[in-house]
């Protein structure tokens, strides 16, 4: 089962290591982890996407809550939150695949952000499932390299990750 957990942390030396280290030593697998400063520069927000059963997920959350620099941890339910991920993808540019790439990019509302005679760089944003689908489309066309940010998420409506 895939879960997304939002963590509000003090923006201090070593906090990311503390959080990611916890996953390693408790044997939890992370699918993705993103971190960035919030509107208050003293705090950062980490979003972790992971796979695991309910008891694993609960244990992850409880262990995270014990870290001294962690101020709040919340499980974000898919139904009541919005998730986005950004991917940059470089694909071979040849006369044979060019039009197919452009068409797919258009359908996926992706943007071509770099263009040379040999390659194209494409930016695409969306839920992880959309990103995965786009990768599937691009694979036969010759992916050179790619880079994903990992998922970021916010709850819908007024709910917030309290400060």
């Amino acid at each position, binding site marked *: 089962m895939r879960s997304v957990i939002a963590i509000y942390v003090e923006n201090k030396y*070593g906090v990311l*290591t503390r959080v990611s280290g916890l996953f390693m*030593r408790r044997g939890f697998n992370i699918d993705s982890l993103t971190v960035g400063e919030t509107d208050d520069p003293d705090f950062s927000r980490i979003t972790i996407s992971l796979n695991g059963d309910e*008891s694993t997920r*609960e244990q992850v959350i409880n*262990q995270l*809550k014990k*870290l001294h620099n962690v101020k709040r941890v919340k499980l974000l339910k898919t139904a009541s939150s919005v998730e986005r991920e950004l991917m940059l993808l470089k694909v071979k540019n040849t006369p044979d695949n060019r039009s197919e790439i452009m068409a797919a990019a258009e359908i996926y509302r992706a943007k071509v952000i770099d263009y040379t005679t040999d390659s194209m760089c494409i930016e695409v944003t969306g839920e992880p499932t959309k990103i995965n689908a786009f990768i599937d489309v691009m694979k036969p066309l010759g992916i050179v390299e790619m880079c994903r940010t990992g998922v970021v998420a916010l709850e819908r409506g007024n709910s917030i990750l309290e400060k």
Partner: protein
Amino acid sequence: MQNAQGVPMTGAQIVVETLIEQGVTDVFGYPGGQVLNLYDELYKASDRINHVLTAHEQGAAHAADGYSRVTGKVGVVIATSGPGATNLVTGIATAMLDSIPMVAITGNVPTTLIGRDSFQEIDITGITLPITKHNFFVNDVTELADTIREAFRIAKSGRPGPVLIDIPKDIQTAECEFVKGEAVEPFPQEIAEDSEIDRAVELIGQAERPYIYIGGGAAGRGMTKLIMTLAEKIDAYIGCTFMGLSAFPNSYDRFLGMQGMHGQYASSMANKEADLIIGIGVRFSDRATGNTAKYAKHAKIIQLDTDLSEIGKNVKVDLGLIGSIVSSCERILERCEKREHPEWNATIAGLKKEAKRIQDAAEQKAGGAMTPKKVFDIINEIKDKNTVIATDVGQHQMWAAQYVDFERARRFASSGGLGTMGYGLGAAIGAQIASGDKTVLITGDGSFGMNLNELATAVTYNTPVVIVLFNNGVLGMVRQWQTLFFDKRYSNTVLERKTDFVKLADAFGLPASRAATPEEFKTAFCRAMQHDGPYLIDTLIDMDEFVLPMLPPGGSIEDMITSVD
């Protein structure tokens, strides 16, 4: 905190002043290049804070740990950078696994040299990240005092544990204003919901065979009376984990002793027979439960713990009461009704009888020989209620757990979770200095060999630690497993050493005797207990003495081994 009314001080002075402000009277440690300034301030403040110099930083860390176990105070250890800091690692990990409050202070190279692999530079905050509750690297002297205060607060809050503070040398020499503060209070604990307390009371009301199972979280928290009153009201029996030992006097008739891998027959069986298990400050560790898949299948489980991540971590529970265990127990006691379970009383009486039968059979088999049981009978006879028992790790430790008659809380210092061989001597010294009471170290020739250098410390400070060294010439616990599970292939467990421990003691400057019979042991132990200072008794026992009963690893209660031919 810093303001105009402060007194200008160096970082090193601030460390010492903040320790004193936090109520610290004794610290353990070892000087070195990057803590020279700190040691200079300790020298100047030696009338206000006592520093105990050990032979090795590991011994200092274990001493701080032992100091904490018998007092409940935060133990403090100081070491220099690099190897000084890494030598603390096992001591810090030992404290972490047993939730012992400790503050470890290390020096480091100046901030300008950090990250350059400078002489004796090591990333000790990185190394200790998984074995501390939290750690700090101080890179601004104005934050130093508050960082130390925060470290104390974290160490003693909720589920206690070790905190490390790494202080580069230039922070120790930098100056800023210091304003004296107060000793910090722990963070307030959560309180379980009223509805959950009601649910616990309901489960207790339905139970016919209640069993209270206490661990390190409940030991030494002034809860003994409270739990006894609860047990009497709901007609329950009490067992404990290794870490729960000494919380209850062994003479208390509802107390069945330690359960688990080498636990008492009666408590392990009572745990199995119970229809309600109330776990208080326990983590249902593999050593205490056996195979968790088969553990307490027919019982409801209520778990009380201040650490929310412990609820259901190892064993699925029916009800978790998160937060102050004192508050939860008090409220359960208030609301539950008086219960009587005559059938359960009869079952327990039967278990106690069977336990005695097993014990008697073992003793009869032994005859007049020097058995561990006989050694402990003598120790129990001569020690008083305040005597502290410290141990190393191995067979002797389990025999101590099985046979020592504890009479009051916080009289036991032993490495439970990490199982640190070499823990004992340092811890015994720390425990003795903390309590001022006679301390008996139960150790084995294997464990003792690891950190016996601390004999020098005991002699220097004339610390009255009586060392009962179970000498069987083998690494007994591992050898026991090899006997039972590896067809007696004794790989590297037979110590073909020629160490003469009596001569060794003499070289270190402490008296010693050798005891090969119970009579000799009694004479030696009486003399040792009267001696003002450390004393070693080389106690010869047979290498084929086993720790029984035993639940094989991964086994459950049905697989209990009670005798070996």
